[in-house]
């Protein structure tokens, strides 16, 4: 058998490593560096110490964005962790017409942002379907401001996120459910466990690691939410900019010829620090699981 040269593995991973260095690591380090400067697209770049961090403390928009992301997280996390699992359990069964439902649940995932915006604006507009039907049925005297009230707008965006996320996480759970041994379900059924009991005692423990992965994915996505709020609230984040997300705020400051790249980078670093927490927790949990 020929001995392989020492550099062969390095050669094989070189393209990926170069790609990561150029398009991932370098921009990341650059962002951290810029966070301590007053960089502009056309100049600037003087070291300003913690000036950007101080500015964050006084930034009302940032407090709105952080609150929005936290509310997003608190509402989306339970909904998107459990609902897709229930749907996956249902979609797994060979019921009549289940193919239609599998397709229906997954369609929003592949729908383009423009189409989604049109559909949801048509639904939630002051003259939209929901307000129209409610007024026809005399349930409302005047339309509900789904797209202009701070909290209703946030709730609308959350609904959109859940609608789009159900199919995506359902697919992840479906693959995990395939690994839950059927014998366990059969044994539990013989022991007299009902459907709910089997779901709690067999299904959930069987997909526990996947649930954790989904939880982390949702947490990171909630902190980085952009498109749903953007299509409903517009680039300005609704009246007063009170429905801005962190990513929208970063975009606001980094746009155009006079964008404040230094401050936008500082916001990016803050977002990174917030989202790295759940990732580290998952890493630690996975390590423990592997050890046990």
């Amino acid at each position, binding site marked *: 058998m020929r001995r392989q040269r020492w550099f062969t593995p390095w050669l094989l991973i070189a393209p990926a490593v170069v790609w990561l260095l150029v398009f991932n690591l370098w921009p990341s380090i650059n962002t951290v560096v810029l966070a301590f*400067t007053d*960089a502009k697209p056309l100049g600037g770049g003087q070291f300003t110490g913690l000036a950007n961090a101080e500015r964050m403390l006084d930034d009302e928009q940032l407090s709105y964005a952080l609150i929005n992301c936290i509310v997003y997280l608190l509402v989306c996390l339970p909904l998107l962790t459990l609902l897709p699992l229930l749907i996956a359990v249902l979609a797994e069964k060979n019921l009549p017409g289940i193919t239609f439902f599998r397709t229906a649940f997954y369609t929003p995932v592949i729908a383009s942002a423009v189409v989604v915006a049109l559909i949801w604006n048509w639904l939630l507009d002051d003259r939209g379907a929901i307000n129209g039907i409610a007024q026809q049925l005399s349930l409302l005297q005047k339309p509900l401001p789904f797209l202009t009230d701070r909290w209703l707008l946030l709730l609308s965006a959350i609904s959109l996120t859940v609608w789009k996320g159900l199919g995506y996480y359902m697919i992840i759970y479906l693959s995990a459910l395939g690994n839950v041994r059927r014998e366990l379900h059969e044994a539990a059924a013989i022991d007299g466990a009902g459907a709910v009991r089997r779901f709690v005692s067999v299904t959930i423990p069987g997909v526990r690691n996947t649930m954790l992965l989904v939880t982390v994915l949702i947490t990171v996505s909630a902190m980085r939410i952009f498109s749903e709020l953007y299509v409903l609230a517009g*680039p300005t984040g*609704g009246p007063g900019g009170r429905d801005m997300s962190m990513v929208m705020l970063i975009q*606001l400051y980094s746009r155009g010829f006079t964008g404040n790249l230094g401050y936008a980078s500082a916001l990016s670093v803050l977002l990174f620090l917030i989202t790295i927490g759940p990732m580290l927790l998952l890493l630690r949990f996975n390590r423990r699981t592997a050890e046990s």
Partner: protein
Amino acid sequence: MRAKIATLAALVMLAATGCGLSGEDSGGDVDVSGEVTGKVSLQTWALKPKHTKYVEKLIDGFEDKYPGTKVKWLDQPGDGYSEKVLNQAANDELPDVVNLPPEFALPLADKELLLDVADTDDKLKKDYLSGAIDAYRFPGVKGAYGYPWYLNTDVNYWNADLMKKYGLDPDKPPTSFEDLVAQAKTMKKKSDGKMFLMSRKPSWEDLTNAGVEILSSDGEKFTFNTDAAAELLDGYRDAYADGLLPDDVLTDAYLGNSELFKQKKVAWSTGGGNFINDVKVDNPKLAKDIVPSKALDTPPLYVQGLSVSKKSDNLPTAVALARWVTNADNQADFAERVPGIFPSTTASADDESFSESDGSGAGDAKKLAFESLAEAELLKPVVVDDAINDVFNQQISLAVSGETSSKQALDKAAEECTKLLND
């Protein structure tokens, strides 16, 4: 050791990335004299494919007039143009001649990346309208940084069919804000709240028209938080509370009142002189129902121009090309192809063909727009960039929705916009 390496790496990064474009002074006088020959690049903004033939004809004409020249034409798509130009400037790749509206030209002129054409061209004032040249003069920057190319303004467009349907006379459209509110009330009542006449929240242009001083004289502070501005916002707030405006206007999640108008969600829009021809493409049936009228107040002036890169390797040819594209004949030819845009040359100022209508709605709109140009002004300060505009719109929406007082919203907007201006 590891810490030392990390520190060293960070310092290298800082040196490599933190410096950016220093906007160094490339010297005082620039010599644009010399033989017009060799290669030169021209960048336009979203003229392909609609106007490909026109631009190719322009380039052929230039190359025939100046044998030995070769023009490389670049056309950038409509979306993301500012980012494209920004990247070109940051990487020292700005084309020799580039189409820039004044708000794009300002930051580049500020960094001394554009040629001061007022300094290098003695005939500038003689050949181009002074208002158009002034659009390329910026506070705190000496000179003018673009050859004016074509002009446009806004006129009002009314959906005659909807107006008739809901008790209004399209031959007597509103002529003032008060009139607009009064007619909007009629439309709301007759349509049972299903149709709107008013279609936008107040803008920078509205504040300027209300006599509000937007910027301090030194250009360093926004001063629009006045009682007159608050009064204007109060008018819009009351109209919104009365259900005279659709919710869409508060979120900026739409492309503007023209989009609402095309979707027949509102019966009024503002637009350039060529708006009806644009609507014909999207909705031919609607185009027949559109009636134009003069802007409610002082019409806004929109200018497009060609700037010359100061770092061009072939300045004489670049200047000759910018001059060629913007000369009276070529501008008149372009304006004929695109009804509703107008030449910025003094030679075309009295051209009667622009002030004639063929009796169609589009023809009337073109005539109205041309007549409006005489009194049109730059109503939005050129220093207003995307971020400033967003912050302003956020607070205006808040005031119109009635969630904060108009004065409070204006104070906050002025404070935040000033911060961004001096960032």
